[in-house]
Each structure stands twice: as C-alpha cells, then as structure tokens.
C-alpha cells in the first residue's frame, strides 16, 4: 500500500492533521519485516531436529534381555553314563538289584553338591553280571556301546597285583568308549579288596567276596569311584576354585621355565631344554588343547640369590629352609622372570623355576612342618607357578675355587621335570598322590605318561567349561549394567558384535555339554569368556571420553545461544511492533467509522 492516500473530499483533508502518530496510523502496517524475522526463526527451529540428530550418541544395541537371562542361569548339565561289570560272582546277584543299590549310594554321595558339572540331572547306570555259567544285564535307557557279555573273563586278570598297566590296557581294549565310565569288579584272587583306577575311563576292584554282606561293601566302593573319582576328580567337593584356573582371558597360558644360578662364581649350570620340550612337554600341551592354548619359553639366569636365609643342620647334613621362609624365597628384585615376549596382555604366565644354590648353601633342603625333609624339594604358589631347588651333585665335598660350567644330566633333568609335572597338576587343583583314601577304602591311581589321565582331563574340561561360562555370564552382566548406567556413552558396533558372538558361543557350549561332549564344550565356553572379556575391556569404553551433557553444552552454546537470542528477540520485537501498529490502524479505522 502506498503512503499516498487516494483523493478524498476536503473535509477529510483535515483529518490527518488530528492523527496522533503514537496511537493511530492511516495505513496498514507492513508485514515484510515480520515475515522476514519469523522466517529466520522458523528455519532455526526447523533445523533444530537435524542438530539433535547429528549430536546423537551412536549406541549399538546390545541384547540386554538375553544377557540377563544367561546371567541368571549360567549352568551346564553334563550327562553321566556309568556301567558296572561284575565278573565271576557265583552267587549270581541280580543286576537290577545291584543297579538300584548303586544308584542309591550315588545319590547319597552327590546329595550335598549341586554345582555345575555334577551329575544331578542326567544319570544312567547299566550293570552286567557275567560269570561262566550265565550273563545278565540291565537294559540301559540309551544304547551306547555297553559291555558285551563274555568279553572279559576272570582268567584275564592277574591276581598277583604286579601288572596294573597290563590290566589297564586290556580293559581299555575291551571297554574303551568315550563318555562311558566303567568299573569292573572281579571276584577272585587273594584276600582283601584292592581297587585301582586306570589311566583311561575305567577302574577295577579285585577281591574275594563270598558272603552276601560284602556285596554292600562292593556297592559302596563302586559308587565312591564313580562319584569321587570320575565326577569330582579326586578333590573333596568337586569344585575347583578360581585360584586353580590359571588360564588367561584369551585362553592362553605361557609356561616360563627358568634355570637360576644363584652364584655363577661357584658353578654355572645349563640345560638341554630343547629335548625336554620335545619329549616331555609336547604331549602334555597337546592333551590340554581344549582347555588352553599353551606356549613354552625358557631362560637361564645368573646372579640370582634368594632373599630368605637358611641354616646348617647337622642331622640332615644340609642347609635347611623351612616353610616359614617360603614367602621370602622368591627374590623378585633380582629374579627377573617377567621378561616374556610371547605373552600378550591378557595371557596368564606360569613361572617354573629351578634354583641352583650357591656353594655356601649347598645342599639346600626344604623342611616340612611334619619334621621331615621334602622329597621333591620344591613348592608351588597358586596362579604364579612353582619352584624346585636342585642341588648340584657332590656339592658338599667339591672344590669351589674356580667357576665351572656344567650341563644338567638327562636323569637329573627328567627328575626335575617330573616334579614340575606334579606341580603343574597341583596348579590345576588336582592332587599329586597315587593313593586316594576315601570313605570306603583306599584306591590306587595309575599315573599317565602324558601327565593327566583321560578321566582327569574330562574333569578339567567340565570344570573349566563351568568356570568359563560363569565368568562369561558375570562379565556380560557387568557390561550391560555399565552400558545402561551411562546413557551417553558411545558403544561401537564392534562391541555389539563381540557380545553377540559371545552369547552364541555360550549357547553352543551349553548344547555341547548336554550332548556329553566335554572337549568342544570347554573350547566354546573358553571362546565365550574370551569374547566377553574383549567386549568388556574394549578400549573405547572410557568414561572420560563420553559426551557428558556439560561437554555438549560447552561446545554448542557459544555458537547457538547468541544467535538464537538475537533471532528470538528480533522476532519478538517485530511481533510486538506489528501488534502495536495493527492496534493503531484498527483504532484509526474505528475512529474513521465513527466519524463517518
């Protein structure tokens, strides 16, 4: 609208001169400025959702429901398949009766332990009574390769108790089946009852049993072998604690063997480790494959005295250190054992130390609290490793004026490594005796050349699978709680993938376990744990780098606050002005209307 008003009659010409510009105006107020400011404000407001989306925290979605479900129930159920074979029992006891009584005894022994790895749910037992005249069997619920009648007869057994290994091999050739544990009870031989547990998955009891009452003794011994040996692995309650799971989070163990020469000025010893590694260690490493990925390192160190003191004892003709000195034996200031290159950040290192004492302290022996000298002259520290003190031969009488270089003889090295093998077993929580004293009697345990018997490996696989699954569940639970408590933390895709793979591996482990496959269940559960730990310890989960609200505000407010302030205030001002001018115009129009 132009400001020039159209032609109006003269009497109207006077009207403008009475117009008060503060309260009336003649023309309609312009809307250009208002439209301009409002459009700027509107575009600012329109852009706000885009800004919001662009500063959104990227969080990969984690399956919280599945994680909490697994955390509440991280257990594995392994099936147990047992069989008992009674040979040469002329009284012909009924197999069903025997089966019931053995099962009763088994449930009695396992009643107080309901932890992972025990046979609480899935237990099957088959009993065979085989004598010359007849052979009766209970019918097993699922048809695995159970014992065939007539495969073993009493004449095969050597009752002179000499050749345990031979009997073991024979039984293995007859009974050797994965996942089934067997006990063979033979009537005959001398008096008394002798029980032996073999290297594979069977045991045998030999004795002359004629009366009926002794049957219950046999039943309890059979049940004890099943529960205490094959299920629990010879430990008290079957549960191996966390202190005896020396496997790193990435499923690796590094065994570091160190030969320490305390005083090289007296003598220097070297060893042929290569051969030991190939002959003694390689089979053990292969056998423990499902549980951990083991690598071996060795080194020889010099000038490494111990930091405890010893005293000369005339009775034992040697220097004595006692068990009270053991915490101070390992002189960590001078023993630089931690120089491993192979070990990654999350592997576990076990140190095995052979300590060669100086001439001033040789021979050095360990005095046990019972007052005897230790036969193995060594000790272990759980989760750290073991130490063996090896005294050079003839050290009491030798000349020590000149330093001499020697190599440890093969027999000495073998003896030392046998002790190491025992220590290694103890680090896994297994006992190193060859005699087990149970509630019903004593049992002889046959040792295996590979360090671990097959039933012990089964026990270890099951325990490790349980431990790994439990650890995986708690780690994932911690991760999900952490992620939910920090809603503004970035979670990368990689973490989401790791969690997903970990849950899949855990499910695989559970299904493998219910099928009875110990090894693959240990492998999958180990992978599950390793993936869960990778996710939890991912370097991007750092609280110092997530976008807290203060951080966001501090970055964006200097840009947007002043501008938005200006725009808003301008829009408000224009709106106010428009309203004022509009009011003025309507007032004038009303006045004109009134006047006309």
């Amino acid at each position, binding site marked *: 609208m132009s400001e020039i008003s159209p032609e109006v009659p003269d009497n109207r010409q006077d009207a403008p001169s009475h117009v008060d510009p503060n309260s009336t105006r003649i023309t309609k107020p312009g809307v250009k400025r208002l439209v301009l400011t409002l459009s700027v404000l509107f575009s600012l407001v329109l852009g706000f959702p885009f800004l919001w989306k662009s500063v959104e925290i990227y969080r990969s979605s984690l399956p919280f429901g599945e994680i909490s479900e697994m955390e509440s129930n991280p257990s594995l159920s392994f099936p147990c398949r047992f069989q008992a074979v009674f040979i040469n029992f002329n009284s012909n006891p009924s197999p069903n009766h025997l089966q019931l009584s053995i099962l009763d005894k088994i449930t009695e022994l396992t009643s107080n332990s309901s932890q992972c790895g025990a046979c609480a749910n899935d237990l099957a037992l088959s009993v065979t009574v085989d004598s010359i005249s007849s052979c009766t069997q209970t019918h097993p619920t699922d048809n695995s390769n159970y014992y065939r009648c007539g495969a073993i007869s009493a004449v095969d057994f050597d009752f002179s108790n000499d050749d345990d290994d031979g009997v073991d091999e024979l039984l293995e050739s007859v009974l050797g089946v994965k996942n089934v544990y067997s006990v063979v009870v033979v009537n005959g031989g001398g008096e008394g009852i002798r029980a032996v547990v073999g290297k594979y998955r069977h045991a045998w009891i030999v004795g002359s049993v004629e009366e009926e009452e002794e049957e219950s003794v046999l039943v309890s011994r059979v049940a004890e072998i099943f529960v205490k040996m094959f299920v629990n692995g010879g430990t008290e309650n079957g549960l191996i604690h966390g202190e005896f799971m020396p496997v790193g989070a990435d499923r690796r163990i590094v065994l570091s063997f160190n030969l320490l020469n305390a005083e090289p000025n007296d003598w220097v010893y070297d060893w042929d480790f290569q051969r030991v590694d190939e002959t003694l260690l390689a089979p053990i490493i292969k056998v423990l494959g499902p549980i951990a990925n083991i690598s071996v390192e060795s080194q020889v160190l010099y000038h490494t005295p111990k930091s405890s003191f010893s005293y000369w004892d005339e009775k034992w003709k040697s220097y004595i250190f006692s068990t009270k000195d053991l915490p101070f034996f390992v002189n960590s200031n001078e023993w630089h054992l931690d120089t491993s290159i192979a070990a990654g950040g999350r592997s576990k290192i076990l140190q095995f130390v052979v300590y060669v004492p100086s001439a001033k302290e040789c021979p050095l022996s360990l005095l046990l609290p019972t007052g005897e000298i230790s036969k193995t002259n060594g000790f272990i520290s759980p989760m750290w490793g073991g130490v063996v003190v090896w005294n050079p031969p003839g050290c009491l009488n030798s000349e020590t004026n000149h330093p001499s270089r020697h190599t440890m003889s093969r027999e000495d090295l073998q003896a030392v490594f046998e002790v190491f093998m025992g220590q290694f077993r103890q680090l896994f929580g297994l006992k190193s005796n060859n005699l087990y004293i149970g509630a019903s009697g004593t049992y002889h345990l046959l040792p295996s050349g590979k360090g671990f018997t097959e039933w012990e490996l089964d026990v270890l696989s099951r325990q490790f699978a349980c431990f790994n699954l439990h650890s995986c569940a708690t780690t994932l639970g911690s991760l999900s709680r952490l992620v939910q408590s920090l809603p503004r933390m970035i979670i990368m895709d990689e973490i989401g993938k790791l969690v997903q793979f970990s849950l899949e591996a855990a499910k695989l482990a559970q299904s493998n376990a219910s099928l009875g496959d110990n090894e693959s269940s240990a492998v999958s559960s180990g992978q599950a744990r390793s993936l869960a730990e990778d996710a939890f310890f991912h370097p991007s989960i*750092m609280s110092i780098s997530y976008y807290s609200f203060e951080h966001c505000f*501090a970055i964006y407010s200097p840009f947007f606050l002043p501008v938005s302030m200006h725009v808003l205030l301008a829009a408000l001002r224009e709106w106010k002005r428009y309203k004022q001018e509009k009011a003025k115009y309507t007032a004038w129009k009303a006045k004109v209307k009134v006047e006309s």
Partner: protein
Amino acid sequence: MANTLSLYRTVKRLGIPDERIILMLVDDMACNARNKYPAQVFNNENHKLNLYGDNVEVDYHGYEVNAENFLRVLTGRHKAAVPRSKRLLSDEGSHILLYMTGHGGDEFLKFQDSEELQSHDLADAIQGVVDNGGHLSSCHTLFSGVLAIGSSMKGENSYSHHLDSDVGVSVVDRFTFYTLAFFEKLNMYDNASLSSQTSPDPAGASQKLGIFLAWVLLSHNPPLCFGSTAAIQQYRMEPKTLSWPGILPIPVYSTSVTVVLQSFHFLQSNSVNVNCILPNRSIPKKIGGGMEVLGFSPILLIFLFYISILIGSL
C-alpha cells in the same frame, strides 16, 4: 616427585617386585636445567638418600602421565599393543595400593597442570576395579572393599614438611613424611613389628603392606603448595592364607599385590599459582593462573553478558 619415589623405595624394600608396581612419574625434576644436583632427587634436606638413583623402573613418564592413561590403567582397558609391564594385571584376590600425589581440590585432581580428573570418574574407575575382582562377592555397596585415605580433610590444606633451601623447593610433605616413618619401623621378616603396630594377623610382606589402613578424602585446594593430596586406597582387605598339606609341595606364597604410584606434580609449569611460591625460592615469580579450569563459569559469564546486552536493547 620425591613423595612418590620415597614410597616406591619403601614398597620395594618391603618385598613387592617391580612387576607388581606401576609407577607413573612426571620425571622432569631430576634432569631439569635448574636442578643443582643433576639426576638426583632427595626427600630430606640432609640429602642422604638419592631416590632417583638405581633400580627405579618408571612405567609411565613425561607426557604419558595423563588422566586418560591413568583411567586406562585402573580399568584395564588398554589398546592391544600395550605391553604387560604397563598393565595392572590384577585378578580376584588382589590387593591394590594406590598412591597419588599432586595438586587437587574439591572433587578433582590435577594432572600436569593441563588436565583434570573429576572425582566421579575416579570413583567409576575404582568401582570397576572392585567389580572386576569382586563379582563373586555378594555385596554391591558403593566402595565395598575399598579403603581410602587422604592427607587432609575437605576444607583443610595439606602442607609441606620442610623446605630444602639448598635446592630451593620443599622436598616432602607432612603426610608422606609420617607415612614413611611408619613404614621404616616395619621389618619384613618380623611378624612382631607389625602386630605391635596394628591389628592381628598374617605373614608375608605383601599382606603387611595390605594392612595399612586409614581414612579418606580429597582435600580442598588452592592455595596448595607442595601439599600432596595423597589418596591411598586399598581394595579387598581379606587376607588369604592357604595351606595344602601333602607329600608334594606344600604351602603357598602370598596373593598378588600391585601398586600404582603416581606423581603428576609439574614443578616448572607456567601457570603456577602465585600464592604457591615460597619466599626463599630463587625462581622468579610468574603471574599465572588463568583459565585452567574447564567448567561452566566462563560460559555462564559470556551468556549473562549477552543476555544483558540483548535485554537492554529490547
């Protein structure tokens, strides 16, 4: 720096090996051009003991001592290539002693005069450490298994012990001085010396260290000269004793103890607060300070400034 090195030596004397200690040291003082005794650091004005001498293994030094690395050490979230000696390799059953010295204030700690660590970040990290070692335990209260001690209460200042006018700086603060005196009285091989000092129990040097107790919190800050806000925190107090009788090797050695020591006090910083320079020092005064603190305050000021202008223009 002398505080940290003193405690480091004490801890090593009591039997903790280097592989169990993480030392984060901003080791700028020993070889600084202004140090009259090059490559030597003392904690007493009689200069009897050179702390920076031999057998000091520093894991993080210089610019590696920052808040991010510190939190990474505590939470264990390192990049894959970080070597084992720079990691806190603790597991369930570990006791951890954390000693920090430097400047700090209400709810924060200073790193190298350029960064800060907020107390809630530190609390989260410590909670993470406890959780990692304690997710087998049943109590989930905040800071279960953690004991912490500081050199002064909130609102108090922490002061240096004495000044060494030869070198020109204060060499040790009171808290550290008395702490070290306490440790000097401990004999590693003697159970009696410990049980006479504190409460009952055990054998083993690492457990003795683990028994050292006290009270907490971060002190109030400036003006705080060479005071140290030493927060000693200790996790998982239950000492473990195991014994395995048997024919073969018997008893066991102690649990693992890892010590994280850290000094992030940066002496010659350009932004040393004027109040901190003691009169006897030969270092010229510098006018410093400035906006070291990142927080709401400057932004709020700008904001208010703008608003006042705009409202005035309405």
